[in-house]
Each structure stands twice: as C-alpha cells, then as structure tokens.
C-alpha cells in the first residue's frame, strides 16, 4: 500500500467512513489523511454529525427506552475504574482559608484522595493545602499530570489547529466576546485570548518565547485569589482553548513557566497576567 492515498480517493470514501462502512485499511488511510487535510476533516466532522442524526432517528424509531438498571451498572463500575487520580472535591478549590475551613460539599461526586497537608508558601498566590494533597496523591500514584490537568492540556494537542480556527472565528463573531490581553510584568503584551460568556476561551495570538523542551507554559484562571489550572500550553504556545467554569467569578488569567508535566500548584510567579474583569 502506498504511503499516501490521493485526496480524491479519500474524499470519495468520506461518506462511507462516516457510517463506519469502510474496511480497516481504508479507515487507517483516511485517518492519516485527515491529520493533514483540514478540508476533508471538516467534511468528515460534518458527515459524522449527520450520522449522529441518523442514529437519533434510529433510536426514536424503535421507541427504545432505557433498560432498568443500566445506569446502576455503569455507576457501579465507576468505583473500580483506574481513573488516573481522584482530585480534591471541586468545592475544595473554593476560597482558601485553611484546610478545615473548606467543607467538602455533599454534591461532590468523588471522594477526597487523601489527607490534606497544609503547606503555607509565601507566593503571590494564596497557598493551597488542597492542591498540596493532590501533589501528594500524584507523588503516590506516579501519574502523568497532563492527564489529570484541566481541559486545555489534554485537548490542545488533539486540537492542533483542527476546527479551532472556526471556533475562534465563531467566538470573535459573538458580540459579547471579550479580548483578554496578557502582559508580562514589564507590561509587554505576550498573548491575547478571546473569551465568550459561556466560559469558552481561545488563544488568538502569542508572542511568548520558546522554552526548552523540558519546560512548559501553564495557563491559570484565578478564582478568589487562587489559581485553577486551565491546562498546559506547551513550550511554544500558538493555539489553545480552555473553559472557564461559568459563574465561578474568575478574575484573572495568568501564565507560569513550569516543568514539562505541569504542576497542580504554581510555585513560581506568573510571567504574564491579564484581567478578566
């Protein structure tokens, strides 16, 4: 088999591909092609979306209702899933006072991973005992931080530009979008982000200098004076997307330079910050 199939050939297969009606080799060739061909990728995404409607239609047509107990089966097996690591309950990320002042909410789905260890640090950020516990958990489990980090770090590579231009355009077309400019401590502009009211945000430009490969930029949203990771930006940020928790009252975006895997708690001062308010 040749290394690259001609564009026309791939294009002709996209319909069948969207319906899972191609052979294994064809599927592999198409996927290789999609990596480098935005036009086919958009077409494939769009046909998949249509296939989803066929699926909805099929589901309704046979008037199927969910079997009793299926959800219980699913929920029951969550406990035993080797999810990389269980982070502190979300409310533990609330305004930091002292660990005991942060009650775990009844609604929090997952249990706290381990003992919290207060570890005051004299940083620009308020220090976070909860995050310290997360660090302990990470150390214990030896897990890959990039897997547990916020949405951005994990989706960014996958995004690698695909579809994001359209998303950025859409965000910019939204009349209520806001442009957030991140400046260095000297006041030089280092990056611009666009944020829409739903909380979706995208990097639209960056002049952040390249870092050595064992370092990464990491993006943070500051909520009540405390940084929440929005994910890793890599060592040469050009594109990124992230989601601010709606209604969380994020006041600021900040970027730090961290070791390649990122950190749960920044112990360095931000290299760039921008106000969201």
């Amino acid at each position, binding site marked *: 088999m040749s290394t690259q199939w001609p564009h026309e050939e791939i294009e002709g297969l996209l319909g069948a591909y969207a319906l899972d009606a191609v052979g294994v080799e064809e599927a592999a060739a198409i996927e290789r092609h999609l990596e480098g061909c935005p036009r086919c990728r958009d077409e494939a995404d*769009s046909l998949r*979306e249509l296939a989803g*409607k066929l699926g909805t239609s099929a589901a*309704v047509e046979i008037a199927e209702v969910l079997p009793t107990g299926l959800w219980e089966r699913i929920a029951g097996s969550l406990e035993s899933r080797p999810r990389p690591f269980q982070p502190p309950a979300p409310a533990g990320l609330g305004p930091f006072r002292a660990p005991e002042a942060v009650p775990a909410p009844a609604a929090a*789905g997952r249990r706290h991973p381990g003992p919290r260890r207060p570890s005051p640090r004299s940083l620009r950020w308020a220090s976070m005992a909860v995050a310290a516990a997360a660090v302990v958990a990470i150390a214990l489990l030896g897990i890959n931080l990039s897997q547990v980090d916020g949405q951005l770090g994990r989706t960014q590579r996958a995004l690698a530009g695909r579809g994001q231009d359209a*998303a950025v355009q859409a965000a910019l077309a939204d009349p209520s979008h806001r442009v957030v400019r991140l400046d260095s401590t000297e006041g030089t502009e280092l990056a611009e982000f666009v944020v829409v009211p*739903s909380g979706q945000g995208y990097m639209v430009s960056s002049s952040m200098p390249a870092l050595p490969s064992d370092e990464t930029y990491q993006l943070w949203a500051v909520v009540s004076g405390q940084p929440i990771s929005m994910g890793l930006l890599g060592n040469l940020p050009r594109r990124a997307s992230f989601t601010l928790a*709606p*209604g969380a009252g994020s006041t600021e975006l900040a970027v730090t330079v961290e070791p390649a895997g990122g950190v749960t708690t920044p112990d360095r001062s931000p290299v760039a910050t921008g106000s969201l308010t």
Partner: protein
Amino acid sequence: MTYTGQMQNVGDLSDAQLVVSVARFREDALAEAYRRHGGAVFGLARRVTGDATAAEDVAQDVFLRLWDQPDRFDSSRGSLRSFLLAQAHSRAVDLVRSRAARSRREEHDARSTANAGYDLEMEVWDLAVADQVAEAMSSLPADERSAIELAYYGGYTYREVATMLSQPEGTVKSRIRNGLRRMRSSLVDSGVRDR
C-alpha cells in the same frame, strides 16, 4: 460548575460544560450525560445489533469511555450526541461484524422493560430530528437510500453493500456520499440545528 463554594446543578450545564465536569470526576455530570443521551445511544446500538443485551454492553462501554477519556470529546468538532452515537455505532458494528452468522436479522421484538429516565424534553427534540431525518431520507433516490440504510443500520461495509445490491463498489461509495450530502443540505434547509 462553579468553584465559589456551591455546586451548580448539572442540569443547567451545556453538553460541553458537562464533559468538562466529567473530566473533573463528577459522577452527577456523567449521570446527566446518560440521562440526555443514554436513550439514543442504547437505541442505536439496539437497532444495529438487534440485541438488547449487546446494546446494554455497548451503552455501558460508551459511557465508561466518556468517563475514562473525556478529553476525546472536542466540542469544536461536533455535538456530544453525535460523538457518543459515533462511538456506539462503531462498537455495535464491531460486534455485528465479529458475529460469523448475522443472526441478528431476526429482530426479536423483545421490548425491554424499561423505566423512565429518557429525558422528556430531549425526547421531543429527538422526535423532531427523527421526523426531519425520515423526511430527508425518504426524499433521496431509492438507490442512495438503500445504500445508506444498509451501511448505517445494517452495519455493512460499502463493499458488502455493493455485493448485496450487485452494484459496482465505486457506485455504492458515491451513492452513500451523495446521499449523505443531499440529506445534509435538506436538513439544513428544514432548520434542524445541532444542539
């Protein structure tokens, strides 16, 4: 979800926000995703496999996978519904293809006993989509329609469909593609949006 101390009701979250919450280990967010899309996922798997037990396994796989790898969903590339259905479809097709005998053809009408749990509002929307899809489908030329139906609902590859219909593979391939494109534009015309 909010970090201000109280938790936002998952029912108020968009699908994309829901997945972010799933990524943050919120089981209630997964439950909400199941409530919104479980019926469609199960229904499609049931349709393709013709087997309620297999469909349950598919649905379980699909939602556990969302739990394990929420980052695989990219809201800039399509809706959560389509994402989940694409996975359900591909799992179901795998099952069907791995079965030597396609005995699933005898669709037994075993309607599983079921509970409510399929969100009513979503169901209304689904019904609307289903109507439009049925209409778009019925307006296709018969040869395009049958190729699409065999491929998608039957779980056959386009080559198999070509054999079944005694038509050249290339013809079936382009009928599928042309039919889908035609449906897409008629759905756009009739105002079916993604949600």
